[in-house]
Each structure stands twice: as structure tokens, then as C-alpha cells.
């Protein structure tokens, strides 16, 4: 068991989401940065689908009520186990009574915590993730509060008493960390259904000018501001399916990127879709930060996906040698 020591309406039990109920309006949900959660799980010997905690409100503190292995990935500030300080993506063994704290990250927005066995909350519609919009799943369908006690599932393999404490450094993350303070993050996008309805000028603006994240950014979607995008045709569309990554352009001309808890249907025209392997870059961006978009075709998108998949695979192979 673990006990939460800090309040945070946006600190949530998350796994990789529920994808089998999109046809009845249930969002995919799950971790905003799925790669970070998957790697956190790998570091404690969990299945990729096990539930961990998505931390967006810092500082975050949690007390261990049992001995267990844990790991922390994503965007992390200073990480402390009792008084011992660590940085980066790190895993270690904690004893009952130990307190882990995560300070606000310098770059990025969300940290992920995994515990050996995964967090034990009931499966709702096949997933342990918290659906904040609809108020179900996770821990009582809500964010974690001070005093909440969460059970851990029994680990399939007994954790070694003193698992080596070690860290990992995914190459694709390093590049972002070095850039994020200065240059806008580049997000690759595939043209979506109404691409041709936008003026040529707007397409150019969309690619050349940066778009800043407004304070109105949550798990459902990120509202951006920048050069207004105009359409040649302005007919109303009938409601249609949307997914995390869909970039809608409402009449204001200011784009909205759909995120993990995207509604399953929408009505605004869509200029593009963020490629899946770049969604975490959006998820780890903060209000005030700028994004730059660049269009790629299907095959280029596929190439990026394969590259990331290889990176994930080789990281997971190295991790399995450590555990």
C-alpha cells in the first residue's frame, strides 16, 4: 500500500486507457505520455498495461506503507527518497515508511510513477485509468487527495530485496530537454479531412508561425493561440469521429489539439492530426510554450513510428537485463 501525502486534482491513476468503447462515446483516456508510463512499468518489471500515477500537480509526495520497487519517468524535478536526492528517470527499492517527493519539473508537464505490481483499482470497462470527464475509473473516478491509500497488486515475481538502483535516458527525450527552453517544440502532423478547405495562406501560417499553448489546456484538449486560420469553404459539418491528436479549427481560427480524454465525436473542421509518436511532445508542453507544426505524409509518419518503436524496444531490452 501507498499513502498520498499531497492534494492534486490532476494527479491520477492511469494506465494505457480504454479503447474498446469508443463506439459508445467513451474516451480512450489513459496516460497523456504513454511512452513514459510504459517505460516506468518496464523498470519495475510490470506489464505495459499496469496502472501507475500521472502527476501534474507538484510538489507530489507519497509514503510507502510496504516494501516495494518503484520508478519515476516523464518530466521530473528533483526526486527525493527521504533525504536522498536523485535526478532523471530512475528506479529504486523503497521500504515501508519511506517518503518519495517530486519537485516541479524545469521542463515538461507530467511525471509518471510506477510501483511493482501496479496500482490495484478495479477495472472499469477494461481499464484502470481515471476518466476525469465522466467521473469513473481510477481511484473513485477522481484526482488523488492527501490521505488516499492505494493498494498495490501482487507482483508476478517477488521483487529482490535490493534491486539495483539505476536510471535510463531515452535519446528522443534528451533532444527535447536540450531544446525546450529556447526553440518551440516541433510537432509532425498528417493532413486531415478538411485540409483542402483552408486557404493556402493559412496552411503556410500554420506551418511557419508558432502556436502558443493557452492556459485552457487539459486532458481533453489543448487550446492554442497564434495566427488565425481561415477556410475557403465554411459549411457546417455533421458530427464525426475525432481522436487524440486531431487538430480542430473552430470559427475563431485558433486551433485545438484533442488529447487523451478527447470526446469521441466533434463538429469542427480538422486541419491535421498529430502523429501518434509525437503526442507525448504535446502532452509534455506547458501553457505559454510554443509548438511548431510541420506536415508529413503517411510514410514519413510511419517511419517515425517505427523509429520510436525500435527505441522503446531497445530500452526495454536493456531494462530487462537490469531487473
Amino acid at each position, binding site marked *: 500500500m501507498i499513502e498520498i501525502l499531497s492534494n492534486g486534482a490532476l494527479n491520477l491513476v492511469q494506465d494505457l486507457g480504454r479503447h474498446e468503447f*469508443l463506439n459508445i462515446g467513451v474516451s480512450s483516456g489513459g496516460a497523456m505520455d504513454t511512452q513514459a508510463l510504459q517505460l516506468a512499468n518496464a523498470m519495475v518489471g510490470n506489464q505495459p498495461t499496469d496502472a501507475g500515477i500521472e502527476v501534474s500537480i507538484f510538489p507530489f509526495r507519497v509514503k510507502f506503507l510496504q516494501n516495494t520497487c518503484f520508478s519515476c519517468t516523464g518530466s521530473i524535478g528533483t526526486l527525493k527518497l527521504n533525504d536522498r536526492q536523485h535526478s532523471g528517470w530512475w528506479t529504486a527499492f523503497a521500504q515501508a515508511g519511506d517518503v518519495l517527493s517530486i519537485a516541479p519539473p524545469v521542463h515538461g508537464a507530467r511525471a509518471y510513477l510506477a510501483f511493482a505490481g501496479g496500482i490495484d483499482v478495479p477495472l472499469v470497462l477494461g481499464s484502470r485509468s481515471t476518466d476525469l470527464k465522466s467521473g469513473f475509473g481510477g481511484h473513485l473516478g477522481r484526482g488523488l487527495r492527501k490521505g488516499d491509500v492505494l493498494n498495490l497488486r501482487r507482483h508476478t515475481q517477488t521483487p529482490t530485496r535490493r534491486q539495483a538502483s539505476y536510471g535510463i535516458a531515452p535519446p528522443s527525450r534528451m533532444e527535447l530537454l536540450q531544446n525546450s527552453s529556447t526553440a518551440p517544440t516541433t510537432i509532425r502532423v498528417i493532413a486531415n479531412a478538411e485540409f483542402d478547405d483552408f486557404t493556402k495562406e493559412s496552411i503556410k501560417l500554420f506551418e511557419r508561425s508558432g502556436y502558443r499553448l493557452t492556459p485552457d489546456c487539459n486532458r481533453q484538449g489543448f487550446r492554442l493561440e497564434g495566427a488565425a486560420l481561415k477556410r475557403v469553404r465554411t459549411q457546417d459539418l455533421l458530427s464525426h*469521429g475525432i481522436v487524440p491528436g486531431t487538430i480542430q479549427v473552430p470559427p475563431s481560427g485558433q486551433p485545438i489539439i484533442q488529447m487523451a480524454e478527447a470526446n469521441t465525436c466533434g463538429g469542427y473542421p480538422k486541419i491535421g492530426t498529430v502523429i501518434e509518436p509525437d503526442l507525448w511532445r504535446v502532452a509534455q508542453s506547458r501553457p505559454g510554450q510554443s509548438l511548431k507544426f510541420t506536415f508529413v505524409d503517411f510514410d514519413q509518419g510511419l517511419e517515425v513510428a517505427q523509429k520510436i518503436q525500435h527505441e522503446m524496444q531497445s530500452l526495454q531490452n536493456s531494462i530487462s537485463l537490469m531487473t
Partner: protein
Amino acid sequence: MDMSQGKFSLETQRRLWSMCREGGALAKIQSVRHIQLGVNNVLVSFDPQEKHPSELKELLVRAWSQAAPSTVKGKLLEVPVVYGMAEGSELETVANNANMSIEETIALHTSVEYHVACIGSVPGFAYLVGLPDPLTTPRRTVPRTRVPKGAVGIGGPQTGVMPMDMPSGWNLIGMTHLDLFDPQRDTPSLLSPGDRVRFISKSSLK
């Protein structure tokens, strides 16, 4: 895939119901993962490593060309509504827009059977089609940040019931007690595409 030609067509939607149903033509295509039915359109998610998009596109086009209209008669759900009950009700706005009295507006709204075109946006929300033309009312210019679960509304040419407290730009005309969605139920969504809905005017909700 967008099959719409501007205005909603029930015939097109019937073909989509048959193509998109469980075990239907779309589900049988290799690499297809998720099917999100819309209003005269469908979103298909697939694994591009299993099938190249251009190859999939051909299969989707073929499935659509072969899709026959669904002949399944969906279940009929009667929905008791207290008209005018919703907080800040816009029943009068709808009536004025239709150039009708309140009574005539209620009579018209309860006079037809609506079809569930698809379920989506939020869990259990049914896009109902078949709203009599005079009741078509433009959405509010500023959407409300929260409308209560059970509110019955009209948004453009569509009508429906809010399955949960949610933001909405629709004109509210009444309230019902209806659990359109419950994740713990065997069938979490009360309604399915192809089902029918009839609203019944009540003086109170028991």
C-alpha cells in the same frame, strides 16, 4: 470516410449501421482496430504496420460500395420529459423561432419517432435525427459551461438528452430522468445506433 452530401440522409446512415455493426464488413477488414460511427460518416482506426493506408482505403471504399441498408428495426425507447423544467429553459426561444405556441412546440417535439444515428461525443450520448424542420434552432452563441444530466435539448437540426453534467451550446427545452450511461451495467449505453426514441410530455418526473 465522409459519405455525407451536405444534408443528413437516413438511407446513408442505414448503410453505415449495417457496415459498422459488430462483426460487420468493417470489423472484418484486417488491421482495423476501432470504428467510430458519426452522422453520415465513419472514422476507422487501423494499424498502419499491418496494412498500408492506400491499401486499406481501397478495402474501405469496396466495403462501402457493397453496404446494403440495415433492415434491423431498433428498439423503441419512450422518454418521459417535463418540458420547460430545465434551469434557464429555452423552450420559449425554440417556440418563437418556430413561430408556434409552447403547446404546439411540445406537441410537435413529441409527435415523431427519432432515430439514434450514432452514440458519441461523451459516453452514452445519442445523436437523434428526425427533428421536425420548424424546431431546428441555432445553437447558443456562448455555450454553457455546464448543463445537467437529463437535460433535453435542441442543437441545430438535432435533439438529444445529456447523459451527464457537461458543457453544451444546445437550447434546453426540458428534463428527463434517464441513465443513458452506466459503466457498471452489462450494456453501459442504454441506446445503440438504429434504436428509436419517442418523447412523452409529463407534468412531473416520479
